[in-house]
């Protein structure tokens, strides 16, 4: 399985060469990989449908419990099959759709990497590797939405999608780490059996909220649904693949994957049901109000994602059956419809539903495929979508939590979706022929293969529901559910409540369809008014806020004035160190002056006077002279307190310093006063607080001795081992000789710097 995942990345590396060599046929050639992957995964069907779980593991970072391990059960296999099977048609389709596009090679690179990341995501058995693949899908999706990077709105939409999904990804990472810590393992297969420890912990609420934010952003749940329709800026193959069948379902996948472990938590089912239901209705309404085919489909995808979330939230047996059937049905008809929308756009030149009509003569195959897929979307027999819809109603009827609210929202959404399906299947293809920007004609084989095959499958699965049922769906449901059970899908259940609801939604949908054309204006105005308060407006406010605060803090903190930087650093030091010192040691000002001789007082006084003179004088010579006084008094201190070597060095260095200052400083202008009175007081307070801190620190250091000095070693070893009587010198040139060598290098580099600054001049541009 590792190679199945890696193969996509490997082929992605060579895709540009394949594209250059094969030209227009590159889509067909590259599609061989997803096709063979689909066959490979299909070969696991017998084992998995028997309820077996296949786990493969490659050790990665065993010390941190992070492994590259793969888990293949019903749920993973269903997703893997969808990804590879639909991926096959998408690659073929993209080869035709983007024929002659200058960046087609790049497109295949990103598309194949995306496919591989998505496979990695649904197959991962380790939370960390799952997260890595999760983020990879966000990044590749960003590049695909912004594929047409010369278009500003595409760039903006791509960035919006990235911000929302990666922002949610951050929350998810925290949530997954909490999950791994609370559950005691990062292996999903072990976590699912970890029992009540996960649910009883006090951190479980935070963990679930974080995981939900990650899943909701990825799967475009309300209030994060707005990025998905904007992502339609991507080329149609991308929309068909990422934003209907695969990536947006990653969040749904994770919710389903974790469902057995977390379903018992009160927050889990409550929030999934509530947010899912709102998303379902909002998506259906917005789909009804849009006129761009791709936007209509995008919003109906939002609706479908909401439905899937609700079904996991309900969590009864009926709901999980409905979940698996709806997932399969939706992936097939939505990918088909998106590809059809691309065909219309490609061959007729517009995707605005109000400007399309009467195309069925020019595009008969497309019209039929669209009709079948739309019937599945509307949930009419004998399509597979009907079975999924019946199961959905049955699931909603089986719940106890918010049952009335869910029922009403589900019914309303079903009506709206029926109307949308009718709009998509009828508006572009029937009625009077409208003139389109291009003379319409049938799409090429590569673009029709996907819609036709997927629409036919919708029909086949509808007529023979036992095929998907016994093949994969039973295994899928059993891997989501906490206890295993058996079920059979059927097209005809007899006269019952779900059937009645289906009929009501169908009639309501037909009524809404008639309402669609006549009331475009009113619906458009209402939607625009509502969107002013919608979450997307909040997103833009938030982004503006980020820019504003970045701008503000840069102007305040990074203003290029050295004084401000120093004040920030010093005050941070004073506050942090001062707080620690005061809380650990206390405030102790001591002065033991009994042993201080009068001339030592005089030396100390001389030092203080010389610096105080230096800071207030306006004469440069005076300042340099007082620096000399300071240096030589420090030398006196060294000599008086048993450090003759220091004294000698200090005298030498001090002499050189004074010479240097006299030579250089007098080429500079005299002291000028730039500061205002306020600045002087501010700087003085900062300086004094630092001085007080240093005094307190030094007093504390003198007072405390944590451990014996290591000097005893040098005293012992200096003569016997290094044959030196001056211990300081022995330390410098023998025991710590490497330090001294480093010091010599520092001086040499400083000298080089000084030399080059004095001698070298930038060549003047004429």
């Amino acid at each position, binding site marked *: 399985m590792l190679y199945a995942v890696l193969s996509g990345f490997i082929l992605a590396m060579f895709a540009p060469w394949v594209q250059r060599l094969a030209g227009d046929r590159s889509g067909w050639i590259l599609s061989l990989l997803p096709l063979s992957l689909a066959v490979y995964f299909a070969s696991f069907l017998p084992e998995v449908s028997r309820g077996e779980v296949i786990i493969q593991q490659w050790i990665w970072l065993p010390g941190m419990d992070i492994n590259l391990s793969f888990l293949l059960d019903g749920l993973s296999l269903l997703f893997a099959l969808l990804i590879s099977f639909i991926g096959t048609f998408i690659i073929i389709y993209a080869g035709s759709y983007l024929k002659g596009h200058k960046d087609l090679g790049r497109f295949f690179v990103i598309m194949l990497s995306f496919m591989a990341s998505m496979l990695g995501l649904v197959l991962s058995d380790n939370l960390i590797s799952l997260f890595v693949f999760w983020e990879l899908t966000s990044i590749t999706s960003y590049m695909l939405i912004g594929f047409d990077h010369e278009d500003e709105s595409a760039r903006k939409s791509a960035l919006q999608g990235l911000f929302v999904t990666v922002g949610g990804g951050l929350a998810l990472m925290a949530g997954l780490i909490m999950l791994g810590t609370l559950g005691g393992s990062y292996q999903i297969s072990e976590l699912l059996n970890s029992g009540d420890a996960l649910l009883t912990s006090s951190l479980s609420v935070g963990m679930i909220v974080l995981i939900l934010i990650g899943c909701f952003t990825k799967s475009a749940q309300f209030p994060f649904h707005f990025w998905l329709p904007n992502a339609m800026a991507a080329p149609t193959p991308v929309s068909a693949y990422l934003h209907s069948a695969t990536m947006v379902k990653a969040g749904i996948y994770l919710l389903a994957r974790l469902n057995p472990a977390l379903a018992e938590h009160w927050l889990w089912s409550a929030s999934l049901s509530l947010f899912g239901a709102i998303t379902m209705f909002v998506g259906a309404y917005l789909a009804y109000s849009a006129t761009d085919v791709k936007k209509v489909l995008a919003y109906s995808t939002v609706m479908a994602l909401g439905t899937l979330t609700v079904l996991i939230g309900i969590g009864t047996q009926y709901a999980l059956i409905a979940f698996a059937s709806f997932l399969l049905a939706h992936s097939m008809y939505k990918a088909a419809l998106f590809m059809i929308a691309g065909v219309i756009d490609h061959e007729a030149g517009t995707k605005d539903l109000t400007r399309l009509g009467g195309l069925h003569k020019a595009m008969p195959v497309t019209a039929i495929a669209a009709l079948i897929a739309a019937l599945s979307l509307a949930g009419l027999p004998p399509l597979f979508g009907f079975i999924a819809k019946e199961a959905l109603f049955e699931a909603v009827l089986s719940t106890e939590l918010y049952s009335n609210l869910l029922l009403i929202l589900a019914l309303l959404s079903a009506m709206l979706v029926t109307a949308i399906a009718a709009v998509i299947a009828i508006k572009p293809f029937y009625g009077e022929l409208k003139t389109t920007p291009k003379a319409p004609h049938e799409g090429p084989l590569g673009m029709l293969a996907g819609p036709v095959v997927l629409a036919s499958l919708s029909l086949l699965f509808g007529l023979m529901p036992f095929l998907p049922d016994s093949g994969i769906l039973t295994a899928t449901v059993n891997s989501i559910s906490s206890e295993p059970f058996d079920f059979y899908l059927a097209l005809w259940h007899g006269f019952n409540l779900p059937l009645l609801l289906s009929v009501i939604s169908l009639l309501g949908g037909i009524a809404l369809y008639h309402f669609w054309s006549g009331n475009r204006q009113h619906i458009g105005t209402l939607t625009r008014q509502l969107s002013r308060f919608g979450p997307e407006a909040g997103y833009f406010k938030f982004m503006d806020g980020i820019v504003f605060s970045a701008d503000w803090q840069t102007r305040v903190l990074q203003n290029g004035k050295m004084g401000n930087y120093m004040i920030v650093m010093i005050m941070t030091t004073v506050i942090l160190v001062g707080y620690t010192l005061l809380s650990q040691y206390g405030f102790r000002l001591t002065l033991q002056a009994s042993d201080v001789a009068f001339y*030592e007082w005089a030396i100390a006084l001389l030092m203080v006077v010389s610096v105080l003179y230096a800071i207030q004088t306006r004469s440069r010579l005076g300042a340099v002279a007082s620096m000399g006084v300071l240096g030589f008094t420090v030398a006196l201190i060294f000599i008086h307190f048993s450090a003759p070597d220091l004294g000698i060095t200090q005298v030498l260095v001090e002499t050189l310093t004074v010479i240097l200052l006299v030579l250089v400083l007098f080429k500079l202008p005299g002291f000028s006063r730039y500061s205002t009175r306020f600045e002087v007081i501010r*700087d003085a307070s900062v300086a004094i607080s630092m001085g007080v801190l240093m005094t307190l620190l030094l007093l504390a250091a003198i007072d405390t001795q944590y451990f014996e000095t290591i000097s005893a070693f040098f005293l012992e070893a200096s003569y016997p081992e290094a044959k030196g009587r001056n211990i300081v010198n022995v330390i410098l040139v023998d025991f710590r000789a490497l330090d001294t060598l480093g010091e010599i290098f520092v001086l040499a580099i400083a000298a080089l710097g000084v030399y080059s600054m004095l001698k070298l001049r930038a060549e003047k541009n004429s």
Partner: protein
Amino acid sequence: METLMAYVVGILFASAIYMMLRRSIVKLVIGLIILSNAANLLIFAAAGMTRGAPPLIPEGATAPLGPIADPLPQALILTAIVIAFGVLAFAVVLIHRAYEVVGNDDLDQMKDTDT
């Protein structure tokens, strides 16, 4: 004596910081000189100050006779003095050069990269 030095070191640090916060670049150099002296004295005082007992081994002995000053901080300070001089020489020349290029000794006028 060490406690007295603690106060002197505090005053030295305060003066150094105050000078380095001035906008005139010459005052920055003065601040730098005071700061390095303050740091050296800080290490010296923190290690303990001993009168009239330099860390030397008398002729004929293999180890010091009686208690002497700690040699290790002295070695550290010796290094610090020399490095501080290197930094100072570099800074002084750099400032001189910057003044030549910018034509102004106000640090706040040197905040742009494109002069």
